[in-house]
């Protein structure tokens, strides 16, 4: 679609005095928007690939303290967390040894039956055992685990807090559209590229919604074809051909006819693209490049029992890598992956519901563990998929980020669950992510754990009953990082926004009172934060 070379157009434009500091691209003819856009969001490199992003929204609020567990803080444990405790395995070393301990030695089936936390090698933090498949990604240096993420004056309402995460504007209704939607508008491609932002789920989430361009939601990617009466294969071809002929018909000019023609064209091209993709179950042939369990290469997207871990070989539900209730999510994740890997889409996302574990949260097993198993395998599988099956998106081009509206109370409640609290964990993974780094001797140069390393953290994790876990309203883990700093860093340094664009995508990004870019105090509630974590 990009007939005009962007930079040559810009030189012409400045010669003509058009200027390039556009506050909005939406009043510009669609085909010129990319040419006039700043930055490099969506610009393909020499290999024809652009930087992309997958987001997974953990709706309901994940209990971050049981996901990346601060074993180094003695307050993590009974009596604060008695019935939902992740155990520390006394038989395993828990020192600053660098890599996560994986697979745990002495286990006959190395990836199964973990019942205690997996030390992350920084002497402080451990992974929930259900997240064990994050360990190989972590050890490859492709995973950043960012703890203590929140925002000033944290709302503990799901409704408000999800809104704030998605609009990028906490405690404010000044901004009404989605953060990633604005990133797509800034790319200048929102109207000319067939697909830019795509969600897979029941409906388009706020983070991709806005009034100037329609992002795409696929409630069921197998629906992405044009039904036609009488719905026979040849009849559908007949109807498609007739519609294509009708699209060529010439008409008088009207206000929206260029847009309609463009999007009908985009529809035709995405139909072609999607027609070559197989979203069906039979098309789900993606398998690991190694025998995960000393067993056989597992399916990357477990969507049936037979594709769930080693079940096919062992015929044993113990060999499932994810719960059987996870198939819907992996169907969506597979669709998101195919869309990013095979189309021009830049951002794709889906969500997992059910994290609101007010009662019977469970510990090493149970309801939260079952949800975490999805995350662990999802990140593991995406790394493999975008490596082994890379087409328009390699693992190095991709960042995966999880969002969740707030963390949960430090102290469990009387229902063996946790209630709404404040700071939480974000998972960020990708080939370009700055995770664990060790030198040739195995000495740690950089940990992949951010903000959960005890006294070595830039803003130290203070331990004990007056420590970080109790520093907000006496009950909640206190934040030291703003979620906007994480997303802003990714949008600018991974997707390719300029700082000026980022100021529009995340309003107030450079406001010194917000301290989003560099370490400082967020004046709205006087909390010190680290600014941007160095994750990409």
């Amino acid at each position, binding site marked *: 679609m990009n007939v005009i070379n962007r930079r040559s157009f810009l030189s012409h434009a400045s010669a003509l005095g058009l200027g390039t500091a556009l506050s909005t691209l939406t009043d510009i003819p669609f085909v010129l928007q990319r040419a006039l856009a700043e930055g490099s969001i969506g610009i393909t490199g020499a290999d024809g690939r652009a930087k992309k992003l997958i987001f997974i929204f953990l709706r309901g609020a994940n209990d971050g303290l049981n996901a990346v567990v601060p074993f180094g803080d003695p307050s993590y444990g009974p009596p604060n967390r008695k019935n939902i405790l992740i155990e520390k395995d006394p038989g395993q070393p828990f020192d600053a040894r660098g890599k996560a301990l994986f697979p745990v030695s002495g286990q006959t089936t190395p990836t199964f039956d973990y019942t205690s936390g997996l030390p992350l090698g920084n002497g402080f933090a451990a992974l929930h055992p259900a997240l064990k498949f994050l360990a190989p990604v972590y050890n490859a240096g492709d995973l950043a685990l960012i703890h203590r993420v929140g925002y000033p004056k944290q709302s503990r309402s799901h409704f408000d807090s999800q809104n704030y995460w998605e609009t990028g504007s906490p405690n404010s209704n000044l901004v009404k559209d989605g953060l990633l939607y604005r990133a797509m508008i800034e790319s200048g491609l929102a109207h000319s590229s067939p697909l830019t932002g795509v969600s897979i789920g029941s409906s388009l989430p706020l983070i991709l919604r806005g009034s100037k*361009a329609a992002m795409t939601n696929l409630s069921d990617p197998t629906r992405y074809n044009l039904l036609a009466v009488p719905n026979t294969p040849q009849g559908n071809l007949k109807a498609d051909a007739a519609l294509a002929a009708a*699209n060529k018909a*010439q008409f008088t000019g009207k206000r*929206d006819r260029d847009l*309609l023609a463009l999007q009908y064209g985009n*529809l035709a091209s*995405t139909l072609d693209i999607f027609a070559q993709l197989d979203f069906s179950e039979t098309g789900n042939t993606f398998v690991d490049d190694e025998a995960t369990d000393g067993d056989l290469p597992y399916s990357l997207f477990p969507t049936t029992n037979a594709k769930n871990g080693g079940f096919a070989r062992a015929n044993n539900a113990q060999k499932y890598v994810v719960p059987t209730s996870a198939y819907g999510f992996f169907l969506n994740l597979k669709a998101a992956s195919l869309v990013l890997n095979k189309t021009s889409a830049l951002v794709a996302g889906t969500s997992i519901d059910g994290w609101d574990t007010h009662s019977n949260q469970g510990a090493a097993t149970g309801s939260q563990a079952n949800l975490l198993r999805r995350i662990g395998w999802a990140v593991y599988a995406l790394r493999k998929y975008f490596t082994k099956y890379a087409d328009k998106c390699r693992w190095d081009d991709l960042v995966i980020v999880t969002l969740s509206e707030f963390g949960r109370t430090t102290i469990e409640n009387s229902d063996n669950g946790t209630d709404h609290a404040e700071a939480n964990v974000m998972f960020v993974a990708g080939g370009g992510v700055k995770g664990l780094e060790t030198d040739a001797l195995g000495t740690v140069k950089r940990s992949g754990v951010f903000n959960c390393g005890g006294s070595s953290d830039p803003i130290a994790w203070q331990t004990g009953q007056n420590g970080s876990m109790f520093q907000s309203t006496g009950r909640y883990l206190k934040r030291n990082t703003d979620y906007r700093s994480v997303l802003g860093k990714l949008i600018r340094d991974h997707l390719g926004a300029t700082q000026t664009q980022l100021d529009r995508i995340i309003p107030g990004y450079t406001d010194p009172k917000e301290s989003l870019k560099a370490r400082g105090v967020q004046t709205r509630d006087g909390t010190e934060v680290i600014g941007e974590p160095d994750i990409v």
Partner: protein
Amino acid sequence: MKKNSALFPRIALLAMSGALASWVAAADTGTPVITGISAEPGRVTLGFAPYPATVEYQIERADALGQPYRPDTTGFLDGFGWTGLSSAPGDGFFRVNARVLTPDALLATTLLQRIAYGPSPDDLARVRAIGPDAYIAEQLAPETITEDIDSAVITPSWRKVTVTGTGSSSSLYIYLDGAGEVYLDDIRLVAGAVDDAAKANLLRGGDFETTLGSNWILSPNVAGSALTPDEAHGGSLSMHVVSVGAGSSQSTAVYQSVAPALNAATTYTLSYWYFTSQTVTAKLTVRLSGSGITSTHGLGGAVDSPAPIFAKLKDGSATMTDLRAWHLLHAIQSRKQLTEVLRQFWENHFVTDYSKTRDYFDNAGLATDAAGRVATQLESKENLRWRAAMSDPKATFHDMLKISAESPAMIIYLDTINSKGSGTSIANENYARELCELFSFGVDNGYDQADIVQISRVWTGWSIRLVDPAQEFNPFAFVTTNYLDPNAITNKTAVTNLVGAWSFNYKAANHNTAQKKIFFNHDAKGVVTTPKLVPARFGPPWAGRDYSLTIPAGTGNPTLQEGYKLLGHMADQPFTQEFLSVKLCRLFVHDGFAIGYDFTDAETTPEEELVHACMLAWESPSNGGPKGQLREVLRTIFNSALFRSDAASLQKVKTPLEFVASAMRALRARRDDGSYTVSTDGREIQPVMDRLGRMRLFDRMEPDGYPEDAAAWISAGTLAERIRFVQAALMPAGRTGKSDVGASTQTDPVGLLRIKAPEAMRDAGKVADYFLDLLFPAEGKANLAAFRSIAVAFLDTADDGTTTSAFSALAPGTSAYDLRLRGMVALLMATQRFQEQ
């Protein structure tokens, strides 16, 4: 010639120089432009740009300047090109005439696209007959329109059900899912996808005129069933099915073993008539074992009637699905189309969020479904109040604003519910901000943050309470003392034990009692200085006016009046006049209106002038009544040259609601028996609107309401769903893909032709012409030539897409005819042009 079809010519000129090689097109703007011309001995070829609303193009030629132009009949038109076989290829001058729709004909189409949810066959004929101005007058006075769709008593009558499927078994079952009775008659099962009267009934004794004998077997559950003369559809008897309990299979059904056996791979069509009942609640099922063909439905006989839903809305038992269905059914069916369009406008302008309301009541202790019903009722009440208010000829914007402010749904949505300004509490600014930005003045139009802080204090105390229904409109009422269980010992006053109405309630104790100085300027230290004045750009009569408002300190219940005073003050300020005029112009004319025009400078546009005219009609109504009368403003828009011109016609894209409603309306004509050629229960098409870009009615999370403009709704993904929707809507019952719209959503284009154009039925060209005029009435016949040839080719081609199969050879009533026509209509509705209005 009837007035509404009178046409007049427009003229375009082409000046031609003497040399054949140097044709020059000198376009007269506003007329068909010749875009290219070439000539060789004996042949002239020219191309021209399409011209809006053109019914016929004609080429004229003059041999020399000063000579008269005469139609050149030597050539032939092909789309927007013309080839002439001139016998005198020397110097000549050509021009293109466009015969366009008359102003009335054009206006009729614009009205149906904008003040209605799209043309229906009946409305299109009616507006063309009575003339557009009569339609405007009627729609602006909905109180003069008689309508009973919410109160219609459904008289029992015979209804036909037709369902197509495969022969999964040779056992046919008839049963009710509970105790009850029903009369059935003329049940037929034929091979093929339509109820082809020429085909033999595969069922024995389906006319229910001879004894049941061994044809129909009665299982014990339905042993009381018998033939009866009490009611009959055909002949003198019908089958009276009497069930003492729930049926589910052969052992609890009236059944027949069909002989010879059906073929599982073959398509069959089942049809029968049943007599409707408003008293029997059990559902009737008629199906083959194995469910290759299944029909299950209630006996109310009015799936598409909003009356039963309206009763539920009134008694508080309706769910959000019910309310959405009612809203959709009104959009499709109501004669008060402008009222329905405006009701959606107000609902969307004063947006609230069902999910947030439901969560509130969920947290307040109600079970989720009960919370949902309360939240639904609050949405329903504000909509019914807006509708009632609009039937007052002098209804004002201020009236609409008050209804919104008093709505518990708004009080919950924008957080005044718990807002306190007493003591050291800081008032919640949410409602104050949106009142300025979204509900009245428009963003950054005449207010600033200091005003928002002041206004937020005015709204402290605006809350809700569960009160005795008799006290619903008393904002000082106490909590109801009607108890579900008056003898409850524990939790007697829990919300789950209270009977009442959730109503606007004023809590003076939460109110900020200080003086409020609103719309004042401030110095650098934030100290109030001078009143704000209306900016110069508004010009007379507004510019320079002091629009400040000082509310004195006060205490107790009288401080409730502060809110009303402020609403009255803001409702008619020029900022509000401008913002609402712009929004109404965007709704009715096109999306290219903005706030911020300088009404005093020399530069102007038709858009600016129309906004200005609306503001003047708001400020100084011609009837001398109060400011802000909606009908005065609307009349200004509808009478404007801009609204009546090509600059408005087809210049907007349908929102998901408009798309769904207009697709249903487009094919919906009244049959002689009072039924319609389209039906839907309004429930099953709701998921469609979610797939078209998440237009969940009454459930917009963001306070800016659903957008009007095309870019917000049109993407490749949403277009795929739009196309799937029209295809599913046209799909005959029982076929894969029909589930997208549900079995209740039925269309009958063959039936439509039988009513509206029976003479055209065997002629592909005439059939195409009928639907092109119905679906694209504003485009002009000559501009639809390409669509016409595509439609005709579609009709004349078999389903394989290659074999020629003349449509004229297909007999109406056959499956092949039905499918061919459905496919063609769905194709036209899948085009870019059907996205527009």
